[in-house]
């Protein structure tokens, strides 16, 4: 149903905002991610305020070893940023290297989380506190996993030489997402692990 007066496709218009539309879209999407985590944090807050958190079977979650894990994830945010800095200096090999380092740190984090699940001594089926512990950390773990997959694509595209200082909104998006996952973890670690169980 196209009219007779069709004309050729326009070039992509210049945008009025400082951000590229992909980046703007990602940031708006992350708002909805905050809301998704918000639903689970709301549930957690409700339990905590009404009943207090007592982990099932009087088990305690390992806050000390997890703080090392937190450090690992925070460190990975820095390595991710170094990848972008190397791109500005047009060092494509270093971009791949820093992305790989980020990937490895993320994978170690995920591995340690799975290990924690095995030693924590209760399961998601043990009371609502067990449920919310596993779903909050699990939801975050899923995001880390998605971040790892994205980093993998970032590395592939670094190898095929698709990132350049002029065109890298994909890489910028991956790094913003990774920072987001990191920030969520810091909040989660604070309210779930560090606040004393009452």
């Amino acid at each position, binding site marked *: 149903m*196209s009219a007779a007066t069709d004309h050729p*496709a326009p070039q992509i218009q210049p945008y*009025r905002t400082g951000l590229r539309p992909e980046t*703007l879209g990602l940031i708006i999407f992350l708002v909805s991610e905050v*809301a998704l985590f918000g639903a689970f944090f*709301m549930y957690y807050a409700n339990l905590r305020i009404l009943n207090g958190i007592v982990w099932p079977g009087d088990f305690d979650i390992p806050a000390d070893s997890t703080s090392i894990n937190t450090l690992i994830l925070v460190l990975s945010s820095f390595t991710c940023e170094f990848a972008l800095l190397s791109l500005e200096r047009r060092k494509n090999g270093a971009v791949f290297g820093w992305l790989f380092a980020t990937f490895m740190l993320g994978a170690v984090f995920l591995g340690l989380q799975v290990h924690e699940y095995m030693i924590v001594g209760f399961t998601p089926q043990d009371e609502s506190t067990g449920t*919310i512990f596993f779903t909050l950390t699990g939801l975050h773990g899923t995001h880390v996993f998605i971040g790892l997959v994205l980093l993998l*694509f970032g590395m592939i595209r670094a190898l095929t030489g698709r990132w350049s200082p002029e065109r890298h909104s994909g890489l910028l998006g991956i790094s913003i997402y990774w920072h987001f996952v990191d920030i969520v973890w810091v909040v989660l670690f604070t309210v779930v692990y560090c606040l004393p169980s009452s």
Partner: protein
Amino acid sequence: MTAVLKPTLARCLWTAPAFAALAILITVAARSIFGMSPVLQESTLLTVAYIAGGIGFIVGIGGFDYWWTWMRGGELDPNDHSQHGAHSWGDYFKFNTDHKVIGIQYIVFTFVMFLVGGMFAEVFRSELAKPGQQVLTDQQYNGLISQHGVIMIFVFMVPVFAGIGNYVIPLMIGAADMAFPRLNAVSFWLLPVAAFTLLSSFMFGSFDGGWTGYPTLSEQSGYGMTLYQLGIQLAGASSIATAVNFLVTIIAMRAPGMTLFRMPLLVWANLATSALVVAATPFIAGAQFMAMFDREMGTHFFTVAGNGDTLVYQHIFWFYSHPAVYIMILPGFGIISEVIATHARKPVFGYRAVAFSSAGIAILGFAVWAHHMFASGMEPWLRVPIMLSTLLIAIPTGIKIFSWLGTMWGGVLRMTTANLFAIGFIFTFVIGGLSGVMLAVVPFDVSITNSYFIVAHFHYVLFGGSIMTIYAGFYHWFPKVTGRMYNEILGRWHFWLTFIFSNLVFFPMHYQGLLGMPRRVADYAPEFAWSNTLISIAAFILGASTLIFVYNMIHSARHGKTGGANPWRGLTLEWMLSSPPPIFNFPTTPRVIGGPYRYGEEGAKHAIVPEVEPATVETTV
């Protein structure tokens, strides 16, 4: 033969089952390796099969082709327009990146779903025509009312506004397309998946918890409830993706000179709606995830036995579903402002106040969720604050109503069908709004809760509100979309039948509710017999009147009089293009030079579309 390899619906026929089968295989293998029993657990297999099948469908239609190239590190051409625009009817059944094609796909698909949901209503209205049991068992009745609600809300009312917005908004702001055309297409194609998931639950014993799916009832229902939870997730994902797209488009792709206060009010309304969708929809996703984990994995979010809190489901659910009410009406408000200003030939009365009231509704919409729970046994201290915020939200809504009245006041009203629907909308919506204010008052709400008064209220705001605006929008932009005029006489028949019989269907429900007839029950006391018979007869006529609309649209799209570029003499940008618009919209970037509603000013213009692109300063290396 090659059709099954190219991105077409034919390819979906094997990709969707293949993905589902693969997912089932992997799940069975994993379950047997980890020694879980039973290995063949039906509800788990059903869940993974539907999720993977849905992804397979999107893969089959071609939604991931571009990103697949991206993932494997291939070269991408940002100016690739090979999937853009429809050149034949077949292109409407393909993955298409043109916002105009996607808009039509949305509108047609969701309207078909409206007819399906309406048919469900006709079936259970025939059950309700007489006291006692007629055609349905109680179980079937519960399934049908639940399906009616869910289909109408999640695959008609929310996405149809996305469809109208998709078609009109890029034109209104002078853009070539939406910001993310491929994402736009994926969000459309998620809808058939969601609709299939919801409708196919009939095969597994339909979900019967009403459209709200409260636990603990939802935790005891059959497999249909799993599909309800999945279907809502899919429709919600589609809705969020579209909202992100609208927000970026409206923020970043406006034509030069289109300042925020030169935007048409439909664009303002969509901006507010999209912000609501982005911030609120994840909460229903969260609520459905929790309920699903409880069902599928035996977790204890809402089970009292495991120290769970059943009421939290309602809190999280309504934290989305109340904003969702505004998601379903705000774009309609925008449509009404467009229609009334154009057909009354007057500037919108209080333009800025209307724009800000959209934003005000969006913000206040987050503070009123618990008025759905006054009778639920929630914390008593929450009641009065929520009652006050609910009453407060009548103010921005009232601003809009007075703006429409003020716009019409002293105007030269053209009584086209579009305008008739807009005026009829004000009438019916005010009734729904007034009963809303009544329901906000806690003592009244507690005494009337779960009765037909509630049914009357939300059908007045959703049928008398949203659907009237949708019809107004359909009639208003029909000449733009097809290039032809609809039949005005049939349009008037459609309007008067819809208006009279929707009031006959929903107004008596107020009385039934006040007299204590409970909703969601297949049978009722004999004293309600005559009013229910009246409602059922009116409902059948109301349903039949829709056929006039369908005939009018189909017939006029082919044989109607040609309408020219601007039959309504509208000033906004979409009317400056030919009807239907060219494949890439504007030949040159339009320049916006004034407000959108300068009706009545001599020679006033909203924008100019230059004949040739003005010379730009080239910076050649």
